[in-house]
């Protein structure tokens, strides 16, 4: 009996060792690639949410619970210099945290959003990333598909552009968003929910509202700190 316990322990330990050995090597190979992609993702997300702006410095703040990262950006428009900010909003969705990069100008108008991490249900909540296809199946099969050009932005994220993040954003149920709905929804400061994924929609919206509030606090704190340093 004792020898059987010893034997089982050794075999289990050996299995764990071999598994760890193999995985540590796989991780060593894939880690730099994953890191590089994460960095690229952040950079391309910044470019997407702050179109035309030059990104300044990255700051983090401890305003509120947890850490909060934001970026400053500027753009010259004629004689005036426009300032804008980008921040990362996090909010628990239907399955896991949804991380959204949000670009806003100094008045709190959303310049663009980009969802950088989500683990929502495929086919439902994960449709936050889905772009409306420009081609129909028939066009692809018959070889008349339009190729090249810019990939369309996911409609869910596109509809946030122009909304005021400083006030409450409403959710309406109008099905998939399209360009024709933009004016009407902008007037109501609202977005159209993804069918069957209202929780996901609400998480993104709440994340943006909370992030905006934290950005305000963080900016005030930063201004105070600079003032104190100048004295």
């Amino acid at each position, binding site marked *: 009996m004792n020898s059987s316990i010893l034997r089982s322990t050794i075999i289990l330990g050996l299995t764990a060792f071999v598994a760890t050995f193999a995985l540590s090597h*796989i*991780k060593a190979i894939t880690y730099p690639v994953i890191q590089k992609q994460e960095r690229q993702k952040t950079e391309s997300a910044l470019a997407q949410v702050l179109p035309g702006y030059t990104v300044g410095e990255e700051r983090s703040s401890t305003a509120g619970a947890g850490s909060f990262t934001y970026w400053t950006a500027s753009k010259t428009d004629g004689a005036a210099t426009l300032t804008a900010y980008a921040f990362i909003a996090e909010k628990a969705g239907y399955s896991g945290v949804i991380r959204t990069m949000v670009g806003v100008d100094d008045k709190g108008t959303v310049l663009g959003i980009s969802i950088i991490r989500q683990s929502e249900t495929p086919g439902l909540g994960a449709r936050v990333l889905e772009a409306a296809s420009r081609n129909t199946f028939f066009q692809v099969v018959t070889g008349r598909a339009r190729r090249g050009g810019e990939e369309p932005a996911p409609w869910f994220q596109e509809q946030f552009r122009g909304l005021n993040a400083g006030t409450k954003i409403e959710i309406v149920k109008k099905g998939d968003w399209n360009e024709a709905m933009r004016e009407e929804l902008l007037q109501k400061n609202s977005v159209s929910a993804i069918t069957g994924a209202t929780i996901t929609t609400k998480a993104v919206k709440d994340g943006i509202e909370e992030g905006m509030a934290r950005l305000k606090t963080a900016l005030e704190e930063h201004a105070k700190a600079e003032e104190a340093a100048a004295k």
Partner: protein
Amino acid sequence: MNYYREFAKGIWEKNPILILGIGMCPTLAVSTSVSNALWMTLAATFVLIFSNIIVSLVKSVVPSHIRIPIFIAIIATFVIIVELTLKAFQPDIYKSLGIFIPLIVVNCIILGRAEEFASKNTVLPSILDGLGMGVGFGLTLTVLAFFREILGSNRLFGYTLIPGMEPATIMTLAPGAFFTLAMMLWGMNAMKSRKGR
């Protein structure tokens, strides 16, 4: 041993989903679009074949009372390999399958085949068994996804099918999966009972 039979049984006679009734969770969850179904099949089949190989190799040294934790460790290792590889080289696919990649660990097809087949057979039949089960799983998943994608989101392979038509969203939700699966089971049983008569 008839090698062809070991491969082919997974497709029809012992189809993991339609006959054995295992692996339902990923089946119902990721069969919303054909491309999700195909990538899921690829990932699960990879894990299935390699865990079958390792299990059939180590079966004689593993004491039977600790076989389950060992099988799970082997399966989990391959799942993490798949997860990291997809994350590094196919980030878009990784993004759209999300949580269902790590959940391959608890796909009972894989543990089921390790326990029922690979732990009692040699390497070559185990590879064929894994491949056959993977193909059977994949075919069922793809057929399910084909109908659900057409009816539920008015698309096929991600392309719009009928421009301007409002799809029946219920088909992308859980009930749609159950309806479609029930139809497939009905069809399969009808065919079998006709053959048997």
